[in-house]
């Protein structure tokens, strides 16, 4: 069960045969064409980057290649022969492996146990030492350092990802599909992943990496393909022949304006929009989720919050907005102490939140868009004992024009909307209010590039209007671009506050991973 290797050819990409090739591949979900008439091929010994916005059909295409979905039209050729892939097992048997974003590992098992579970056959016994040796051998072959005896629970996300890749390779994959592998990694871990990917390439294996980050594509890809709205708008392009602007407009379909560079200084005479003093907060499991946090967000300033997923971001969001009781410490909004943890109290002090998971935290699924926006503004819409719905509809239409996030038709029920459209409703509601403090958790999650850019403009507009903005994100580029300062969380501690112009991504990554500045 060693790793399948192919002879690396002298000119890696040009002469290598295609491991997989698809022709005219089409997949529909109801009326929606997820991928339409797509041609695509991956050669052995290459890293192929698949670019595209959220919802462009990248994941659908990869799930077609991995046998999760079956195409409505078109064909898939593996090693030049047409195959039907009825299940992931069929794909695996042909040497196609996939590493999903939500890693498929059992945290309570050791690395060896996880890999043994994934290997087909192998008899009745679990031969621990034999499996451990295989892992060490395979790891050495690829230059991965993996401890087969380690519990997966104790590994970092980056290490788990390497275990997952090893797992896929040890079950015989020649083509590895990585679904947005860098989205959860710190910059140092991205380097580690890319080193691993390069050694796969050197072994003659093929790698498809799904991403929407251009600089990563440039760092690793031999060729790239671009999907937009289910269509392949560029297939097998050499990255050195195109510039970033051309790539972005290919992904988005039009030019995206750059963010304004000129920004006014925060007014000095205003009290801090948010002051967090010595705050300890307990997590859901009773553990201490935030340790002794001291943080100040000035009026007219964007304070970014960076950290590896689960470092206390959610608890910080909830504590500041009165959604989670403080164990010790206190929180001042515009110099007024929040007397007790109560969302109403935070709201009264002018704090507005954009939640991480609006569908479970912030919407009433049965209400329509107008009703949602009216809900937060009921007192001004009163008419006798009822609500002035005509005026509500007018106001919502006006707000939609002003904010410019292009919400869906205002009489649509929120329960029927996609995640991205729910997010537009949430953002329109939050940006429609004058506030002293805006707490935004991952505001651009699930949005396309153009809407993301508009959201960023709106965040900066709140800053210009004098609000303090606490901006939680997992995208370091976005944080560096928007923030005046960045607070870095590590394991519930404030690891440091840095100024984007003065440090680079690696310094922030170091703090995210628990190192010192």
């Amino acid at each position, binding site marked *: 069960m060693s790793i399948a290797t192919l002879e690396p050819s002298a000119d890696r990409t040009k002469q290598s045969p295609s491991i997989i090739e698809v022709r005219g591949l089409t997949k529909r979900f109801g009326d929606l064409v997820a991928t339409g008439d797509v041609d695509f091929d991956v050669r052995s010994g290459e890293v192929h980057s698949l670019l595209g916005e959220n919802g462009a059909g990248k994941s659908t295409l990869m799930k077609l290649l991995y046998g999760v979905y079956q195409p409505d039209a078109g064909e898939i050729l593996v090693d030049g022969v047409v195959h039907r892939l009825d299940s*992931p097992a069929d794909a695996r048997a042909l040497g196609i492996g996939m590493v999903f974003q939500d890693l*498929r590992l*059992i*945290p*309570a098992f050791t690395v060896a146990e996880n890999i043994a579970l*994934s290997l087909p056959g192998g008899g009745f*016994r*679990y031969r621990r030492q034999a499996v451990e040796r295989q892992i060490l051998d395979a790891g050495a072959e690829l230059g991965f350092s993996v401890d087969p005896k380690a519990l997966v629970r104790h590994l970092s996300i980056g290490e788990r990802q390497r275990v997952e890749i090893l797992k896929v390779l040890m079950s015989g994959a020649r083509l590895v599909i990585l679904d947005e592998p860098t989205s959860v990694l710190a910059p140092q871990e991205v380097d580690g992943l890319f080193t691993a990917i390069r050694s796969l390439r050197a072994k003659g294996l093929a790698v498809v990496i799904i991403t929407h980050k251009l600089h990563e594509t440039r760092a690793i890809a031999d060729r790239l393909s671009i999907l937009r709205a289910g269509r392949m708008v560029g297939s097998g392009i050499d990255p050195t022949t195109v510039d970033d602007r051309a790539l972005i407009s290919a992904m988005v379909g039009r030019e995206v304006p750059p963010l304004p560079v000129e920004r006014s200084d925060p007014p000095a005479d205003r009290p801090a929009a948010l002051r967090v003093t010595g705050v300890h907060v307990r997590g859901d499991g009773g553990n201490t989720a935030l340790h002794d946090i001291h943080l100040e967000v000035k009026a007219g300033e964007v304070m970014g919050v960076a950290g590896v997923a689960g470092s206390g971001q959610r608890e910080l969001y909830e504590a500041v907005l009165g959604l989670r009781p403080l164990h010790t410490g206190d929180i001042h909004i515009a110099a007024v102490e929040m007397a007790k943890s109560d969302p109403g109290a935070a709201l009264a002090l002018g704090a507005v939140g954009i939640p991480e998971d609006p569908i479970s935290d912030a919407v009433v699924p049965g209400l329509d868009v107008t009703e949602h926006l009216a809900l937060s503004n009921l007192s001004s819409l009163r008419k006798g004992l009822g609500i002035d719905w005509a005026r509500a509809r007018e106001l919502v239409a006006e707000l939609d024009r002003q904010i410019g996030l292009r919400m869906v038709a205002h009489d649509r029920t929120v329960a029927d909307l996609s995640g991205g459209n729910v997010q537009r409703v949430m953002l329109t509601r939050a940006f429609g209010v004058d506030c002293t403090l805006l707490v935004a958790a991952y505001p651009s999650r699930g949005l396309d590039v153009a809407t993301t850019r508009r959201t960023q403009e709106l965040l900066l507009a709140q800053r210009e209007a004098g609000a303090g903005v606490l901006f939680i994100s997992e995208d370091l580029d976005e944080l560096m671009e928007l923030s005046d300062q960045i607070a870095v969380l590590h394991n519930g501690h404030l690891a440091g506050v840095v100024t984007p112009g003065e440090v680079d991504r690696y310094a922030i990554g170091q703090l995210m991973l628990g190192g010192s500045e």
Partner: protein
Amino acid sequence: MIAAQAATDVGGQLLIVSVLVGAVRSGTSIFYAALGETISERAGVINVGTEGCMLAGAMSAYAVTAETGNPWFGVLGAAAVGGALALLHAYLVIARGANQLANGLVIMFLGLGLTSLFGASYVSREINGFKPYAIPGLSSIPAVGDILFNHDPLTYLSFALGPAVWFLLFRTRWGLLLRGAGERAPVLSSYGYSPERIRYIAVGLGGLLAGIGGAQLSTAVALTWFENMTQGRGFIAVALVIFASWHPLWAMGGAYLFGAALALGPELQVRNVGVNQFVLDALPYVMTLAVLVVLAKRSFQRAPEGLAEVFDAPPVS
């Protein structure tokens, strides 16, 4: 206190030896049940109805032995009935989505009710049950011979079963699959296995072992049948599994500890030690709790993640 009284020995046997003999004798039925429950919970299903499976096993074994004259047939019957009752639990929990804890209680009461009904006619019957078999040579080792090598065949079987289950869980692919089903079922599904099927097998095996535990109690230790004769041993077994951190060999130790506490009371009485009867009755529970809580502090193993669903808590990663 015990040390001072140990001088007054009965029948030439030290108190400590008598208690240890009793520990194995009384602990074995609990051990079988705890072993079964360990398998079940490792696959992600709690069967609080273990008590019901034990009772069903105890009564079936007694009835079959009484009718056939052969206690081995009784054991087969006990295993079948205990397993069947557990499979009912598995069906309701896995296929019908019933709450595991509530459904377990139902299984317990079902076992209690059915065995009271069908066992009524056997209450005063006598049987020709299992006899202790002294292993030649080994049983004449002082003290150790009496403690370990002078028991009924089901006890000897249990000695082998503890390590066997450990091997099955931790050294076979089947054990990996079983524990995987109890940790993250979707991962198994993604490899093309059926976690449901694995859980059915595990729960069924658990009930089967609990049934054999009941058989050991009625046909080897008590040699009688009466209503509710397990008196909470099934519940103790469920508690032991948790305190033993889902480890079969720790469960073995815990079961004998409880057995020792059970045996201590009668041995003290035989030796005319004046201890309040109620204190003696409570002793097994208090002692088992105390020792195992101290052990559990070292939490060397966590609960299978799948069990978190039972208590509606988010999984810890």
